[in-house]
């Protein structure tokens, strides 16, 4: 195989690795959400184990990236796709951490089953899973329209989060004891993890747009920043 062909093959393999890592994180989130729904401590613990695999995958991919940079000295689109991978795997690893955070919340909730679990949490979980899935599809096919569509969905996640936040604040205000307030906080933590998951999915979409177009474009604009 000629050198250029081999390099193209290596770049395609790298893309495959990232897509597999994306699936791992998607699965991790799914398991965390089921554990939250069913308050299943076993499932929550399995999520924590899954997260270690995600972390290891990130290091394996990063090593491949360094290998390609040092041996191929890439430029232009080749360079952008490798740098994009190096950024995406960091974000994916953090998204895995967010799913693990939800699993830890589940382990707390098992201790105090009367903690509120607003219905919006489930909706948030479905929404951010869809965002991740679409981002990875956009990455697989260099589809920048789809990447833009992902970023737009983050507003819905933020709105759901605001809803959950309001409900939990009300619950905290009516909670009689510090122990109950602390327990209620766990539900807020789960919502916060999902909200961050959505932000990172948007980051991934930005990376895909950069890879394809060579232009940086901030899409995750915080409405509160605009208000000042």
């Amino acid at each position, binding site marked *: 195989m000629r050198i*250029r062909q081999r*390099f193209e093959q290596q770049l395609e393999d790298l893309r495959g690795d990232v897509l597999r890592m994306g699936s791992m994180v998607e699965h991790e989130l799914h398991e965390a959400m089921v554990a939250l729904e069913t308050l299943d401590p076993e499932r929550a613990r399995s999520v924590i184990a899954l997260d270690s695999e995600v972390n290891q995958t990130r290091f394996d991919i990063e090593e491949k990236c360094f290998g390609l940079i040092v041996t191929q*000295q*890439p*430029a*232009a689109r*080749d*360079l952008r796709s490798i740098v994009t991978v190096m950024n995406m795997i960091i974000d994916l690893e953090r998204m895995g951490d967010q799913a693990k955070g939800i699993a830890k919340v589940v382990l707390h909730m098992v201790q105090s089953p009367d903690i509120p679990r607003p219905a919006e949490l489930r909706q948030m979980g479905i929404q951010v899973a869809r965002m991740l899935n679409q981002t990875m599809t956009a990455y697989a096919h260099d589809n920048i329209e789809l990447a833009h569509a992902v970023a737009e969905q983050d507003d819905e996640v933020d709105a759901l989060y605001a809803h959950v936040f309001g409900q939990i604040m009300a619950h905290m205000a009516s909670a009689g004891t510090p122990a109950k307030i602390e327990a209620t906080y766990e539900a807020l933590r789960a919502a916060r993890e999902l909200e961050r998951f959505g932000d990172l999915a948007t980051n991934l979409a930005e990376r895909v747009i950069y890879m394809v*177009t*060579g232009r940086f474009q901030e899409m995750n604009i915080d409405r509160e920043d605009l208000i000042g």
Partner: protein
Amino acid sequence: MQNKIEVSDFNFYYGDFQALSNLNIPIRARQITALIGPSGCGKSTFLRCLNRMNDTISGARAEGQILLDGENIYAPDVDVVTLRQRIGMVFQRPNPFPQSIYDNVAYGPRILGNTRRDELDQTVQESLEAASLWNEVRHRLKDPALALNPGQQQRLCIARAIAVQPEVILMDEPCSALDPVATLRVEDLMRQLVDSYTIVIVTHNMQQAARASDWTGFFWLGRLVEFDHTETIFSAPKQELTEAYITGRRG
């Protein structure tokens, strides 16, 4: 940013063959401009047009303008010798004269009429210092230049070019005959010189263009396909052809 050289609607022919077509290139003052492209794309021809080195080739013909500080270097009243003093050149293979190190550097100033020993001594020292060679040769200025290693010979040629106080230095693949260490020394030297001179370099080494230059122009079949900041050319070029060439898909 000021343009030292402004190339506008420039065409160049070898007889019936059009080697350069409709070039428009700004060469910024005190910056390094790299010209890249496959063999035969016209980049060296273009470099030689910048100090009219192609004039002696029979059938060679230029159209359009190349302005040096606003003056057309192809105007009929231009003195080519003065032009080449203002725009010096360093070639692919180090080509010191078979003379001493000192006489190599003093050659240009002597031609320009400088014969005072103290002034020549000073020019030789300053030029060798500027070319980062002084410390290596100060005790053997009378030694033959051809006894130096290739990297030192190339820096001597740069010192020789500097000695006539040019404004622009053209370099035609100045490192292609040098090892990586000597190459880096010449690149470091270019970065030092660019504080005082405008440099245009033709190179086949993509990494060299990326490392050493501020601006990069990509030539293809006698045309300028793209000209931009070096970082832009090597990270996000606008033209497909540039992309294909620098990533090794075409060339």
